[in-house]
Every structure is written in C-alpha cells, then in structure tokens.
C-alpha cells in the first residue's frame, strides 16, 4: 500500500502543533512554555506550507518565531518568574473552566460531524470551477490583493501598529 506523503506530513505537523500547545499550557517554567509554543508555531507554519500558503509560511517563521517569541523571552528574563514558578500553577476555577471547554468541544465536534458532508460538496464545486492552476505565484497573488482591494485595511493596520508601539513604550517606561 502506497502511503501518501501529504497525509504523513499533515499528521506529523498536527502532532507537533497539538503536543506543543499542550506542553505550553501545562509546563511550570515559563521558558519551557515558550519553547513548546515555538514548536507549536513551527507546526502551524508547516501546515501553511501544506495548504500552498508559502508567503504566510515565511511570515509565520520570521514574525512569530523570530519576533513575538523573542519578545516573550525578553519579558520572561526581565520579569522575575522564579517566585511564580514555585506557587500553584492553576487557579481555583479550573474545574468549571474545564467543564465549560468540554461542553464547547462537544458542540464543535457535533457540528464538524454534521457539517462534513456540506464542506465536501462545496470543495468539489469549487475545485471544478477552478480546475486551472493559478497563473501567478502565491506571494504575487497576496501582494495584488493586499495592495489593491485591501489597501485601506492595510493602512489602518499600520496605524494600529503605530498605536501599539507608542502604547507599549508608554506602558513599559518608568517616567515619560
């Protein structure tokens, strides 16, 4: 029996993502959590690549793993977490929280189970409509959409980033 390489890669990246996520929320030390989160984010990046989103694969690695996680590690070093690591890690309402999340999980599983057929139909229809391979590469298509149709949201996002930069400096500085 021939094993499809896509299937193997999907399950490998999915296992990486989920195990990394579980270790992120269960480790006592914040540094261990951050490293598990990096593993999880790399798994998600691999899944982007499997979905032919090459640009987002690069963005995920450069921005998330290279940017946000370094920011997290810097803050972990700036803030003294030794005291917090010795204390209780989960709060008192953890049982209620877990029950609520399990209820949501049951709901989502039910909807996925019921809706799987519709998704297959939509997929088949759209595959028939777009049978031709795209003429442009992924990055080119993203750029065309981003700087054409989505130019205004793009500029608004840059203002959001400016506000975030100013806000975090104001927040973290001792005296303005």
């Amino acid at each position, binding site marked *: 029996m021939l094993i499809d390489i896509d299937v193997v890669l999907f399950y490998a990246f999915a296992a990486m993502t989920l195990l990394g996520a579980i270790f992120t929320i269960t480790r006592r030390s914040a540094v261990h959590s951050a490293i598990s989160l990096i593993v999880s984010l790399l798994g998600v990046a691999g*899944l982007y690549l499997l979905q032919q989103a090459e640009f987002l694969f690069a963005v995920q690695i450069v921005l998330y793993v290279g940017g946000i996680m370094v920011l997290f590690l810097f803050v972990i070093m700036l803030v*003294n977490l030794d005291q*917090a690591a010795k204390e209780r890690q989960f709060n008192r309402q953890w049982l209620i929280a877990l029950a609520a999340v399990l209820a949501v999980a049951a709901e989502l599983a039910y909807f996925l189970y019921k809706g799987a057929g519709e*998704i297959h139909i939509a997929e088949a229809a759209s595959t028939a409509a777009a049978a031709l391979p795209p003429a442009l590469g992924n990055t080119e298509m993203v750029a065309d959409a981003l700087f054409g149709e989505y130019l205004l949201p793009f500029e608004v996002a840059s203002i959001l980033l400016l506000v975030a930069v100013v806000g975090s400096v104001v927040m973290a500085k001792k005296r303005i």
Partner: protein
Amino acid sequence: MHPIGTVHYLALSAALLLIGTVGVLTRRNIVIILMSIELILNAVNLNLIAFGHALHNIDGQIFAIFVITDAVAEAAVGLGILIALFRNKETVLADEIDLLKW
C-alpha cells in the same frame, strides 16, 4: 478525493482553539495566558487558510495577515502592561491582582 480534506484542518484548528482556551481560563501566570492567546489566534489563522485553500480564494490569506498584525500589537501591549504591573505589584499571577474585586 484527496485524503486530507478541509474537515481535518477544521478539527485540528478547533482542538488548538480549545487548548488555548483552557490555558487562558486555568493558568495563573500572565505570561502563559498571553501565550495561550497566541495559540487561539493561530487556530483562527489555520481555519482561514484551510477555507481559503478549499475555495481557491486568496482573501483567507489576507485576513490571516491582518490577524497576525493584531497578534503582534496585542503581544507588544500585553507584555508592556505586564512589565508595568510587575513594577507596581511585584506579581505575575492573574488572581492576585484583585484591587477591583469586592
């Protein structure tokens, strides 16, 4: 029929979302709560990309880029708040910050 369909990605994304929610709701350490929020945002991105791929539409990827921008802004401001909080209250545990609690 491709063996790995959109439903597989949706199930994975739902699982990632639920793990992130458990982290936000049960952990006491604010740094790990912020990391769990990153997990939730990644689950959203995975969902957007899966539907964009299934429907041969580039808009899903554009939205994922905007979600990543939001995640960066949220992490920067959240960690700034955390540093200000640690300077004033000497704690990073979320349930010890109860000034507004009755």
